[in-house]
């Protein structure tokens, strides 16, 4: 009898501790999950070309538009290079922006201003800098170092029709949040939702993946929104004409190309 009680108690204990844990086949280690998520979200393919439309909307409904082409190429050891070319609005048309992104060290950034024919080096802090005035920070656009947070699996839950793992990230380095929750799709590893909390523990920014499409076999978030729930300001980003593995050459990511943008890739 005692044996049965011990056995039942043990089984119950095991069941209790496994409820809420990731299922078989899903990475259970938080760092591994966030790593896979970053790979799916920011590093898919060898390279990427996309036309991006950003709509910035104030609480009052006033809208501003940004339209740009993004060229991104992956390099060994986790390095990436980005070339961004702005088509709209008119006063920044022709502006080009280049980023060399390195794991665990500050990015190199260049800005080309066509009216001045000038290439500038840009000093900016990733975590707190808004990308072109939007609600996305540079890190929201191009990823954050894995080591810059401690990650913890909180639970599994369904988000709409998708099964997700909910991760909590607490920064160990400078960040624009004190705590972040991420709902990561168990099958695609794409982040479907994020909640950013401030130092007072209040929710202030919410990310949602609004549309996911299969592009050349790679699940891709083609529409996403970041909402600042405190100010009511939001930014919707739509990726159009996404193409992976288009064969971007290394010569695109140079100061010289900033001055003379690669037109064949910008149409």
């Amino acid at each position, binding site marked *: 009898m005692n044996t049965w009680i011990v056995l039942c108690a043990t089984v119950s204990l095991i069941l209790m501790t496994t409820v809420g844990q990731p299922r078989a086949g899903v990475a259970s280690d938080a760092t591994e999950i966030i790593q896979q998520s970053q790979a799916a979200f920011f590093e898919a393919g060898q390279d990427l070309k996309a036309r991006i439309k950003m709509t*910035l909307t104030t609480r009052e409904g006033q809208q*501003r*538009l940004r339209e740009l082409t993004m060229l991104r190429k992956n390099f060994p050891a986790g390095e990436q290079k980005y070339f961004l070319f702005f088509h*709209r*609005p*008119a*006063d920044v*048309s022709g502006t080009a922006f280049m980023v*060399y992104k390195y794991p665990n060290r*500050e*990015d*190199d950034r*260049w800005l080309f201003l066509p*009216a*001045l*024919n*000038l290439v500038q*080096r*840009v*000093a*900016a*802090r990733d975590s*707190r*800098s*808004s990308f*072109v*005035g*939007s609600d996305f920070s540079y890190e929201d656009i191009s990823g954050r170092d894995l080591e810059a947070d401690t990650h913890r699996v909180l639970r599994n839950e369904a988000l709409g029709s998708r099964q997700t793992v909910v991760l909590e990230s607490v920064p160990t380095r400078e960040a*624009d949040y004190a705590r972040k929750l991420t709902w990561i799709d168990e099958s695609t590893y794409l982040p479907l939702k994020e909640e950013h909390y401030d130092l007072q523990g209040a929710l202030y920014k919410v990310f949602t993946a609004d549309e996911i499409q299969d592009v050349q076999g790679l699940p891709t978030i083609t529409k996403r929104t970041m909402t600042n729930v405190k100010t009511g*300001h939001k930014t919707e980003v739509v990726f159009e004409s996404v193409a992976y593995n288009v064969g971007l050459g*290394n*010569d695109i*990511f*140079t*100061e*010289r190309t900033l001055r*003379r943008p690669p*037109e064949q890739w910008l*149409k």
Partner: protein
Amino acid sequence: MFRRVIFLASVALWVHSACLMSHASGVSAENLSIHGFLQANYDMRITGQQPPNPQGGDLLFGEERFQLRLGYSKEKVRLFTRTDLFYDHVANRPGVESREAYAEGSVGSSDLRAGRQILIWGVGDYLFINDIFAKDWGAFFSGRPVEYLRVPQNAVKLDMGTPGLSAEIVAIPFFQEDKLPPRSSFVQFDPFSGVARTTQQPAMEFQNTEVAARVYGTTWGFDTALYLYRGFFRMPALQPNQVTTPTLVTETFPRLAVYGASTRGNTLGGVVSAEVGYYDSLNDQAGHNPAIPNSSFRYLVGYQRQPWEDFTVGLQYYGELMSHYDAYRATLPAGFPTQDQHRQLMTIRLTQLFWHQTLRVGLFAFYSPTDQDYYLIPEIRYSISDNLWMSATGNIFGGRRPTTFFGQLDANDNLAVTMRYEF
């Protein structure tokens, strides 16, 4: 008045038709691009002090301007023009200015650009060492949009590159001097006040073609460049016909060669930059001719960082070390202001963005501890919509002596307002 109305009406009509054309035919989508702006820009002196002549009113600058940028590109060929039409309220007449007009062709990894173009290089922020291309200081001191600091030059530029190393070679057959603030409207120091002047530009001859070259690349995250220039000083050197009681002063442009280098990259939590150059005064290397600038070594170091979101601070220190200073002192005519052997200048740039980067509040300040003069440029700029912005810019000069670069402009403090509609 009637002419002004006609001019503005025709500009408005042109904007309208250009927009219609681009929409109707969809030409901007593929090979042809049409952009431009309509701008109003006025600048008033706020000191009440005026130069003693009929043109010396308080309106330092005032105009409505229309710019049309037309670009065409197909495969390896690109054509580009940037043309301004304006109505000048100081001179009371309309004008046309070609800011850029060039053809460009590519062969392999080389580009050749020929025609009128804006040339610029170096790492300084409003401080120029190896950037020896023409500047319009009158436009800069009048609070005009900063692109008008650049004077377009008619040149041929060859640009060659590999992913690791690139080079530019520029040949400029037509000499273009720096544009200084006009004496008719700016109160400024003149060592030959009241003496007739004439200008003697370098003749358009093959041996007077200016050549500028730059080799550049990025190594270990640092953009590094070597520069070479052979041409002329762009600021006039004043040559009196006689030293004691001159009756004629000739503005000349002595020969100059510049050898330099620059680097900039991320370090110390920001961007650090450094640039050096040796100005070799080819017509007076020994420094004995007081009418020709002496050779000098010039340097600058800069540091820029973002201490908090949307706030950037930039600092620079600049110096000019004159060669053969003893010869300069020995030959300088009596009564002329003396330059320091080591002129130094520091700058600070503060920029804060607000409201999702639609409002920019900034200050740029020059201060020279050796000349003991300063120049402050406060600015506020607001983007009313994606197409429309307005700005107010101050230009405040001062110094201990009325003979230094900024000190002489003390009476010209001014306030400029600009509104621009971009399309």
